[in-house]
């Protein structure tokens, strides 16, 4: 993991001190709310439906056990004993008091954490593949690049007042688990034909009210050119990005209005001016960062305990079938810890669970944890011989739900239960759908299928890219839920299509059940994924199932 330098520590401690002073001036009346609002947002402090919400950055989703324990302590001392992990690999406190936030920032700073750039029209906390540095299919670890981007973008004076927020994601795997195609900039680590390391750069992706698939701006960018190239993109966006209408201010609109060719021409022109300014110091920084991301000291031990347990314990076998991912070390595995237990709110975690998981990570995962954009926690480096013990410890903490990647592992934004932008609730719908599927014992029968729910058009629940997406809206004074089908967050990116009129809160679960039953009937075999069935047959048979003909009235 990256270790904070003295500079980093001084920076986050100073920001916490500055905010303490700003809070005091607001309370004293020296600052109006209008003056204070941008200052609190710069430190991740929002005002939502019930009160303040504090969004804490977890850059590229990487945590150690000390940091997880610190988050638990904060949630217990200054919040209500739970936190919410988001689709941007961040964590949110939903009940902090303004007067406590300076202390919370101090506590975060003491653990090399902060809430910087988790809000506002700036470059937001950078995200990355949650299996980074561990996955068997990875070309290279994306986290050093993500950390370089974090350092470069933090408090970057030129990009502190962009037209709108700006999100960058990095992946080192062709599988793209970082949703790069739907970020303002997506970076994919690649090699040239000659084996030179570099990046494929996509631009202009995004979800929200205008979902757009990012386009490749540069097929191969040499590694050393990354920062001048990013500066070039940001400069062009800063210059021609629209500021007259917030709904048209994201770079995806700049892309749509100008076209990829014109955008590329402008970026190349800016890049030509930027490149000479970078003398290689950034690459020296990158080399130092990379030194901090060396693989852990893998142990050598027998994996027989895993083989034996798997043979004799069907529940353990089921957990292994769904929640493990291939590690680059044959004797190791990656464990997905589902935060989607039956009856629980997706992404929520209680402090007791946080503490238990921190200890599990410290003992059995080389002290590393990851937050996934799928709102789960990852143990990235678990020796297979330790899996029975890990499974038992997860069970004791209520964290051994065997559903990673299955339909009940669904994503949901906080929705109208917390968010003041929301137009409908999302988490109760998520829980009700999961409960219905479980009650029908269909979870495993359905197989891999993603269901994503957003409580408004801003799409924090990524509904556009769910195989099944649900968008909560208000229609004539009540909650209404619109279904989309066919979204895909990976390199084969697709935006789900609306299937038809929305359903009321009391009907959406039945509609999803009809949709699922149709899929089970229509698929050629249990091996045909939902996406394949949809591609083969189109929307019509699913639409017919979702909207059955009404019974004639007698």
């Amino acid at each position: 993991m990256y270790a904070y330098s003295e500079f980093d520590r001084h920076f986050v401690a100073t920001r916490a001190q500055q905010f303490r002073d700003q809070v005091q001036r607001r309370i004293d009346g020296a600052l109006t709310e209008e003056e204070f609002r941008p200052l609190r947002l710069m430190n991740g402090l929002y005002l939502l439906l019930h009160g303040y919400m504090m969004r804490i950055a977890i850059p590229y989703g990487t945590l150690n056990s000390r940091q997880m324990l610190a988050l638990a302590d904060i949630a217990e001392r200054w919040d209500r004993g739970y936190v919410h992990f988001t689709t941007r690999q961040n964590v949110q406190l939903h009940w902090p008091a303004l007067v406590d936030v300076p202390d919370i920032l101090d506590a975060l700073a003491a653990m090399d954490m902060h809430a910087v750039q988790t809000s506002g029209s700036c470059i937001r906390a950078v995200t990355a593949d949650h299996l980074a540095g561990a996955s068997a299919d990875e070309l290279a670890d994306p986290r050093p690049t993500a950390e370089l981007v974090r350092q470069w973008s933090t408090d970057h004076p030129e990009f502190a007042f962009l037209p709108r927020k700006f999100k960058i994601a990095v992946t080192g795997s062709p599988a793209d688990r970082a949703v790069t195609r739907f970020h303002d900039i997506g970076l994919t680590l690649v090699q040239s034909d000659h084996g030179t390391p570099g990046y494929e750069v996509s631009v202009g992706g995004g979800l929200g009210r205008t979902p757009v698939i990012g386009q490749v701006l540069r097929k191969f960018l040499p590694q050393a050119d990354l920062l001048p190239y990013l500066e070039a993109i940001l400069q062009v966006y800063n210059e021609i990005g629209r500021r007259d209408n917030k709904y048209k201010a994201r770079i995806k609109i700049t892309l749509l209005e100008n076209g990829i060719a014109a955008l590329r021409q402008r970026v190349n022109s800016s890049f030509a001016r930027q490149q000479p300014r970078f003398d290689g110091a950034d690459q020296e920084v990158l080399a130092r960062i990379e030194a901090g991301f060396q693989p852990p000291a893998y142990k050598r031990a027998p994996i027989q305990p895993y083989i034996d347990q798997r043979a004799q314990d069907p529940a353990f076998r089921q957990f292994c079938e769904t929640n493990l991912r291939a590690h680059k070390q044959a004797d190791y595995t990656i464990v997905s810890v589902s935060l989607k237990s039956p009856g629980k709110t997706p992404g929520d975690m209680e402090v007791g669970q946080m503490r238990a998981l921190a200890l599990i990570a410290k003992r059995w995962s080389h002290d590393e944890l990851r937050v996934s954009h799928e709102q789960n926690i990852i143990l990235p480096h678990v020796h297979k011989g330790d899996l029975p013990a890990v499974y038992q410890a997860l069970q004791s903490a209520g964290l051994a739900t065997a559903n990673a990647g299955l339909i009940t592992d669904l994503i949901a934004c906080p929705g109208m239960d917390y968010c003041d932008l929301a137009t409908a609730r999302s988490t109760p719908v998520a829980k009700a759908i999961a409960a219905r599927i479980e009650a029908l014992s269909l979870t495993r029968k359905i197989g891999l299928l993603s269901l994503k729910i957003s409580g408004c058009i801003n799409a924090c629940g990524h509904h556009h890219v769910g195989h099944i997406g649900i968008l909560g809206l208000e229609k004539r004074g009540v909650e209404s839920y619109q279904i989309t089908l066919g979204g895909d967050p990976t390199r084969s990116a697709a935006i789900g299509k609306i299937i038809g009129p929305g359903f009321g809160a009391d009907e959406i679960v039945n509609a999803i059940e009809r949709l699922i039953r149709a899929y089970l009937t229509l698929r050629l075999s249990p091996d045909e994924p939902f996406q394949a069935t949809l591609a083969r047959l189109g929307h019509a048979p699913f639409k017919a199932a979702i909207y059955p003909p009404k019974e004639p009235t007698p």
Partner: protein
Amino acid sequence: MQSPDQFQVVTANDLLSGKVVFMTGNRTWSADIRHAVRFDSQTAAHAVLAQVVAQDPMVVGPYLVDVSATGMPLHFREVFRITGPTNRNLNRQNAAA
């Protein structure tokens, strides 16, 4: 002109705690909507709201909420705002204490 069984109350969030509050008849703030002063005229409600915006720095984001004759919000968003999240068992009154 609003209907005779429709009223408005002034709501905001408390600056220090962030809690949802409602303006009472003596211009203080209460966490309990039942203590809120109800206005039957939009003109009067907007005038009070303007005063709050201009003169009360200890609340944030004040606005008007439509309520029924019984004092309950008409829109589901405002109902959730006073009852708390529906997705977990948080005793809002106890937790707020």
